């Protein structure tokens, strides 16, 4: 088990490793390096796909429209074609919502700069600090008048995610690894949404509000990033779905 010859005995401060020890260790060290690199590479290969969200990092564009409060501000922007509107979820820099950026009276027309985040046809704007201003409504801009479609009571199964990270700012932006971050974002006012994926992998997002239409951010924090079932009234506001339900009635599915 041990070399009998004291000359074969390794003493660190004496330069040179005894030949016997060297020819024993060298292949083992090489093997160890190969194993380490292989395990790291294997872990990379087997990890989940982070999805196809997009964050146009570093690119800002002008946006304009009215603000609808659900209760988080949502930008309602007339489509360039003139008919129809697009709705954008909004957030501020970092892990913050945009609730305080829009201080004008209801019906005011806003202009702002922002960075687009989008995934599965759902878009959010990260608003550039200080870029929001109120202007006169352009002639020809038609305010949407239709009241929301009531789609009735539904029971939905999915995961509560923060809309900013999941739509593309962080990849991945959901599940356990991201849970603490989602908690921070939603606590900071980023709109919480229920992510529902059907069997084909097609995603639908529901903006979460309580049964009175109020914000649920603080109340959903312990339930973020976990499998959950929510029963509530679904409303369609243009291209945006809203789910009204008291967070006390949400059911976590993992217990």
């Amino acid at each position, binding site marked *: 088990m041990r070399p009998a010859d004291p000359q074969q005995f390794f003493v660190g*401060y004496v*330069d040179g490793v005894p030949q016997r020890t060297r020819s024993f260790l060298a292949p083992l060290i090489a093997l160890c390096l190969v194993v380490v690199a292989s395990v*790291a*590479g294997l872990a*990379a*290969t087997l990890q989940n796909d982070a999805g196809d969200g997009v964050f146009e990092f570093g690119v800002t564009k002008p946006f304009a429209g009215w603000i609808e409060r659900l209760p988080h501000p949502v930008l309602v922007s007339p489509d360039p074609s003139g008919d129809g509107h697009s709705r954008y979820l909004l957030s501020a820099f970092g*892990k913050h919502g945009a609730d305080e950026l829009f201080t004008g009276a209801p019906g005011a027309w806003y202009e702002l700069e922002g960075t687009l985040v989008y995934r599965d046809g759902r878009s959010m704007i990260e608003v550039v600090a200080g870029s929001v201003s109120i202007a006169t409504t352009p002639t020809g801009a038609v305010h949407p008048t239709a009241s929301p479609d009531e789609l009735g009571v539904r029971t939905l199964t999915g995961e509560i995610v923060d809309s900013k990270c999941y739509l593309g700012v962080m990849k991945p932006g959901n599940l356990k690894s991201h849970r603490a971050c989602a908690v921070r974002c939603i606590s900071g006012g980023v709109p919480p949404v229920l992510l529902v994926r059907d069997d084909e992998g097609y995603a639908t997002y529901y903006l979460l509000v309580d049964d009175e239409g109020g914000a649920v951010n603080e109340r959903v924090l312990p339930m973020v990033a976990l499998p959950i079932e929510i029963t509530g009234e679904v409303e369609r506001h243009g291209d945006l779905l809203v789910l009204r339900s008291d967070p006390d009635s949400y059911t976590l599915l993992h217990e």
Partner: protein
Amino acid sequence: MGVGYRAVGWNRNKKRYDQVVLVGVLLSIAAFVVLSLVTDKGLTFETALIRSTAITAFLLLHVILCIGPLARLDQRFLPLLYNRRHLGVTMFAVAFVHGVFSLIQFHALGDTDPLVSLVTTPISGGAAGFPFQPLGAAALAILFLMAATSHDFWLANLTAPVWKALHMLVYAAYGLIVMHVALGALQDQRHPVLLAAVIVGLVLVLGLHLIAGFREKGSDREVAPSGTDDLTGWVDVGPADEIPDTRARILTVSGERVAVFRDGTRVFAMSNLCQHQNGPLGEGCVRDGLVTCPWHGYQYRPEDGQSPPPFHERVPTFATRVVDGRVWLDPEPRAAGTFVEPSTTTNP
């Protein structure tokens, strides 16, 4: 400070060692990043950095933990132990990058101080709802403490037993990290091979420690005093010529491990515990007339267990006698550094 310590200095072996460690770290990070890109996982740069450093540090920790028992099982692994400190500091540095980037990525720019946010993620029932990041943070704190006190200066100031106890915390850190991974990444990453890899690592670390422990126990002969006549209370170590030349036989008397050496015709005994990091002196050898520790090469004089000047280390010594070719040991330790005349055996 006034406390003498001898730095295990730089030399060619250490430089080569560090080069290999650096190559390993870069290889591991590169393998993760390149394969994430090639397989088109769509990770952001931050995620790739956080994950590649995490996996690299975790792998390094396995290597570190396996070297100890391997060196106890086969002395040819000793060169790896010699500079393990650098492995530990490197592992801490890589884990630190992972921890700091995670802290920034997941907790900064929010409505709460990032360090508060780190420890206040709400707990929800089940493994999926249990916060795993504080476990990683606790492990990182331990690794920091170890890296910061890894220099021999601290070893001398804290004394070897305290230092050794502190560095035993590496096992706590390992446990925390395994939980950090099991309750974190493995909750998301459901490929069974990933779970299997963590388990294989755990089995390897535990298994090697158990095997080395059992081997040691097996060779640890607790010897009861059996002497007669003028050797009353002494311990029979066995035939002198069964101790290999320049080597020792280790035995346990009243719970203490004693190394009984033979160097040619001279027989002498001292405590098995090296004063440096409690390395096993009895697994060392006599070199240039001095007992030489297998771990970092600290040396002690046969007759009094003292390191030759200018060094100050000293270990307890024991009296020996050779009668009819058999070695006898007085189980009463002499104070560290006490002169005891080595005994002689006629048939070397």
